[in-house]
């Protein structure tokens, strides 16, 4: 089983605050890896380090290496925009762009210079199909994305990310703003997607991790405490800390 992303001695500071400490994480290809841990432990920062979105935060400093298929993404000759086409991201709060549904999904392609109507039409349909949204929106592609329900908006954001054709999809607590029905729809969607993609999902919902993740990594106070196949972590964690977290001794 190949490792898609490997971090080596990853350290991140926000100003003087040492947010991620010496994180060494291996993300397997074609699987769903969940990152769990209490609030504020650095899960989102870790996720954002994987597509260099962490650089947008004022005062952020990154040290160490993050290897995507063996190449360090923080290398000076790696274009962040190019990187983000390979490593897509879905955010905690759905953030549709202020455009129509169609334009949202087509955005990533247009930005790469693809303007051919036929190509875009096909890509948009395919992406919406994969995200399980096509049948619900095919009659109203020109409508504003804000007219969708919040669950639909999140699936739109997934479709939009998929349209770009990434190898990896990063999801930051994608269901935390959603109701249980939308949540389960998205969970099923993610399970379908792992055939073609590597998925990394940050979640504070342990049941969710158990449900869908193949591997789980436990992060605590900026350190990677333990990572293992999900069942192993939940049945038989190696670290006391992990066991305490899983059993709900702290949150």
């Amino acid at each position, binding site marked *: 089983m190949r490792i898609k992303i490997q971090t080596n001695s990853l350290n991140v500071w926000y100003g003087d605050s040492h947010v991620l400490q010496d994180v060494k994480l291996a993300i397997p290809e074609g699987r769903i890896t969940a990152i769990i841990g209490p609030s504020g432990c650095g899960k989102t920062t870790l996720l954002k380090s994987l597509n260099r*979105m962490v650089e947008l935060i004022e005062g952020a400093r990154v040290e160490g290496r993050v290897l995507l298929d063996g190449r360090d993404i923080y290398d000076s000759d790696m274009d*962040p925009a190019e990187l983000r086409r390979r490593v897509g991201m879905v955010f905690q709060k759905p953030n549709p762009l202020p455009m129509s549904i169609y334009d949202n999904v087509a955005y990533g392609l247009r930005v790469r210079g693809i303007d051919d109507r036929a190509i875009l039409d096909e890509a948009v349909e395919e992406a919406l199909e994969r995200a399980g949204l096509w049948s619900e929106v095919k009659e109203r592609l020109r409508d504003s994305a804000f007219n969708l329900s919040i669950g639909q908006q999140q699936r739109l954001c997934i479709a939009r990310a998929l349209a770009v054709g990434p190898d990896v999809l990063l999801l930051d607590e994608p269901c935390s703003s959603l109701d249980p029905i939308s949540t389960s729809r998205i969970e099923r969607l993610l399970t379908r997607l792992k055939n073609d993609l590597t998925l990394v999902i940050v979640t504070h919902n342990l049941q969710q991790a158990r449900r869908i993740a193949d591997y789980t990594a436990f992060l605590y106070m900026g350190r990677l405490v333990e990572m293992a196949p999900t069942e192993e972590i939940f049945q038989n964690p190696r670290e006391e800390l992990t066991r305490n977290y899983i059993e709900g001794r702290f949150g």
Partner: protein
Amino acid sequence: MSSPSFFQRLLKMREGGEALTLASALTSILIFASILIFTIHEGSWMLLRPQYLLGARWQPEYNRYGLLLLLYGSIIVTAGALAISTPIGVASAIFISEVAPRWIREVMEAAVETLAAIPSIIYGFIAYFFLAPWIAAVFHLPLGRTALTASLILSIMTLPTIISISSEAISSVPMAYREASLALGADRWQTLWRVVLPAARLGIFASILLAFGRAIGETIAVLMASGCVAAIPNPPWNLLSPVYPMTAAIAIGMGEAEFRGLHYYALYTLALILLCISALVNNTARLLIRKAPRGEVRI
């Protein structure tokens, strides 16, 4: 303790406080209403006798008060000013909010605020003594006080309005939109042009409207820069001719006009037009600013 008498209750500070402040608040309504009433009342006198207002000449000594001539003067000068200051202003706003590092941004903001605070008489002075002779020299004119001169000085005066309100509009575009765009592989500038600026367009347009209002209401600077000759330039779009904006006519005319004489009423009609334009422009701009997206996602 016996219950307080009527007078004691009336004088109770709490009631007093509310009444006092309410009265103060009402004075604002009073003042605005007065300005409205006066302008409409005095301004409509001549509207009811339009024979004076029509025609292509403004010659108070012959009782000819061709309003359109003056309106044209105001519009051409304002349009010229905006044609120059809009691209420069919006570009500067983009620079301040998206391009410049922090310290440069603060320097620019201080510069813009200072520009805004300079009294219009000083702008007029610069136009009269420097800009006008320069224009006269460059274009071989006898006198340099023209529509172009007025447009140029007005463009500097309207820059701060466009810059500050547009950069506010651009900064207010929700971070979520920018993040979404960047995460999809767009770079900073693609994000700016495809997402941020379209989202900020209402605010930017409002800034242009407000600049329009500022320019068309400006008196002293255009008085000293535009030449104040009541004639339509030949050809009409010739900016190198003097013009006579409405505000200048009011300022100059009121000094000589007989109270409630024909000239006086004609000037008040100009004032009414000016007030209507100004109110329209300002209220529309405020409406637009209110409708601009501000960080929430409609669900």
